[in-house]
């Protein structure tokens, strides 16, 4: 068994054991403890604080606080466990009242965005690598600009070289917009090649009317379009890997604020209620 498989088996086993312990503990304590919700609530809060600490660890790379990979594993499994704690804390039913509704929704959003993020983090690198042509995200605008400049030069040169505007017309009509900015975000996410296929069909169609020199220029433009499409693919997928964090982390901060308010509210209205 490889390292990853072994790690997953151990993680899942520990998670199952902890989950069973939470459910069993709740069932055992419910008859004898009046406010078992306090216990699950504090446990859930502790889990959430631990989950939020991962972001802090990332900001302190110069301290020996353990590797990020270990933190991510713990983050994932404690995240799953916190969902079980959440269910135990809410008594396996949807809470009552708008404040608790918002709190529950925030928790579920953070949890779901986390699960999605983990899944996406495993899926997208495979797709990026399979397609090839890796470009660092920050360099994408530079490469795009270079491609656009090259295409523009080719189109303009074709006018002087062939004394016709066929190529430059095609460039203006179909390529300027496409090359000028990152395009087709959603299509690339769902692995659709419709835009490139359509563009290629137009190029093939135009090819019939061109002489050898013009064909050469058009072939170069077609190659640039293919490279730009690959660049858009890189942009879309790499951006998606960044965007989900922009959902997960702000939601986490909102959750933390609502949780603190929740604790204050609970203790404000529970004065004098004995736990047992």
């Amino acid at each position: 068994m490889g390292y990853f498989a072994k790690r997953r088996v151990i993680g899942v086993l520990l998670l199952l054991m902890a989950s069973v312990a939470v459910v069993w503990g709740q069932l055992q304590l419910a008859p004898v403890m009046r406010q078992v919700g306090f216990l699950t609530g504090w446990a859930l809060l502790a889990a959430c604080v631990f989950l939020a600490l991962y972001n802090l660890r990332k900001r302190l790379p110069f301290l020996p606080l353990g590797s990020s990979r270990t933190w991510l594993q713990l983050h994932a499994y404690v995240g799953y466990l916190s969902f079980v704690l959440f269910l135990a804390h809410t008594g396996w039913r949807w809470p009552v009242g708008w404040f608790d509704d918002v709190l529950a929704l925030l928790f579920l959003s953070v949890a779901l965005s986390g699960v999605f993020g983990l899944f996406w983090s495993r899926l997208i690198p495979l797709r990026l690598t399979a397609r090839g042509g890796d470009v660092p995200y920050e360099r994408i605008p530079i490469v795009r600009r270079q491609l656009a400049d090259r295409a523009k030069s080719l189109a303009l040169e074709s006018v002087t070289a062939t004394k016709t505007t066929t190529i430059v017309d095609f460039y203006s009509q179909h390529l300027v917009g496409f090359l000028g900015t990152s395009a087709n975000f959603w299509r690339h996410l769902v692995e659709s090649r419709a835009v490139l296929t359509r563009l290629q069909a137009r190029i093939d169609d135009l090819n019939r009317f061109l002489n050898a020199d013009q064909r050469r220029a058009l072939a170069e433009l077609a190659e640039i379009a293919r490279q730009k499409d690959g660049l858009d693919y890189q942009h879309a997928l790499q951006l998606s890997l960044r965007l989900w964090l922009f959902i997960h982390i702000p939601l986490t901060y909102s959750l933390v604020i609502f949780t603190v308010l929740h604790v204050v509210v609970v203790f404000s209205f529970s004065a004098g209620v004995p736990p047992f």
Partner: protein
Amino acid sequence: MDTIHLKIERPDRWDNAFDPQFSEWELDRVLSYAPFRDMQPDNFPKKQPLRVILQNDTRLRRFKRGEIVVRAGDYGSSAFMIIRGQVRVVLPPGLPERSLGRKSAGKKSVFHAIAQLWSNRHTPEVRTPEEIRGGDVVGEGTEARVFLQDVPRVLDQNKTVTIGAGEFFGEIAALSRMPRTATIFADSDDTELLEIRWQGLRDLLRSDPALRTHIDAIYRKNTLSNALRAFPLFRHLSDEQLEKVKAQTQFGTFGDYEWSGDYKKLAKAGTHSPEKETAIAQEGDYPDGVYLIRSGFARLSRKFGTGQRTLNYIGAGRWFGLREILHNARNPSANIPYQFSLRVIGYTHTLFIPTKVMEEIVLPGAPADALPRALTEDELDHDDDDPLTEEGGSALRIGPELMEFLTAGRYFNGTASMVIDLQRCTRCDDCVRACASTHDNNPRFLRHGPSSDGIQVAQACMHCVDPVCMIGCPTGAIHRDASGGNVVINQSTCIGCTSCATNCPYEAIRMVEARDEGGAFVTDQELKPILKATKCDLCIEQYGGPACERACPHDALKRINLNRLDALANWLKR
């Protein structure tokens, strides 16, 4: 903020002489000793006259009895010539670590580590005044001096060899960028040594052939026994037998010692291929001896189609041809030729032991655990799917495409290469941010580089076995850290000549424009920016090791010693 604030004299190679106090009188004295007195000043180029080299790249040092001059395992950038007195070389197994007074590399204090949270500068590439103007020098003498305790007992318990006035030592480690192989200490109270920075030694060797001959002869006399004993195969031999082997041993030097330039040209032109490399031994030829790799690297390949398929690369301490000779010794009626070809990659120094010597002296009585396993029928069938290596099939586990990629790119040179599994890397750049945080907000690598089979070797310093970046450094600013062997840059002595960045075949060194502490660019009097070389230092001052590796959440980045394939194969199949 000013754009241009500080104007300084452009730094030069000899701004920081090895010994700023080195007097004319001392220089004349050095020039009166052999081999310097026999050198012809006219042989030296006008820009690097003998006198100026000696004045700037050497210094005189005095040692007391028992004082350690060099320690086994340390990386040094200088060689020594004995002027007066004598020194003792401790032969293997050598002295215990505790008696060598080793200290670990200086780490930041806990407070300084935490303080990086707020003290990192917002302006890139800021240098202190000392780092801009230059200050300290590098070399063996910058460390605290260490004395051996109870020298008579050391002499009792260890084998030592004495070497005296006129002899050189430490030149192999200094020139080949390898660790010192033995500890050497002064044997008399008035021992005086001339320490020569490797840059100076290189220039002396270039201009004076007599010095090269002199040093080669010393190597033959003093070091060959140790070099052979380093191979388990020769450890069972008596001194008399070893002398016989030494007498028959041939030295081989293949390729170009300063290989980086040629390699970069070939790689750029896309004309690099194994067939064009010099063959040390050819598949199908009679196995007339065993090649032991002394330093450098060689490619193990086999015919495939009309070309050569790389099966493995082998470096210092490995051998070639032994299995064939062993097979022939055991099966006199079914002799086989070399099963593979051995080709030089960059440069390779070899020791060649003829088959007759192996059969008559070395193999009889050789312990079984020092011998390789016999060639199997399958291996002899030349089935290309066979592992064909003595490493438990690491090369096979890695696969032929990646193997070819690693060899063609010469990544085997790296002891801490940044390898990224692109199928797990989310391109989040946590590694880059962590690197920047630990280097005053300046990332020291690019998460970019050539890739094959989903594996990328990023443009980060690999801390090479053979750091060719050091070849051209005129001041020794780029050097090996004495305790760990990491290749680091002394910002004070870096003159921004770009030699290291040009030499590095892996594009891992970047030249940056230095700023002063006010954030303004520093220029020379012609308003040209002052450059400094920067690169990964493996977080040598930080706790916990390389921040990039620790920062990767997805197990996608690893610093791996590609010199041995086992670690990579295990990581790939994790």
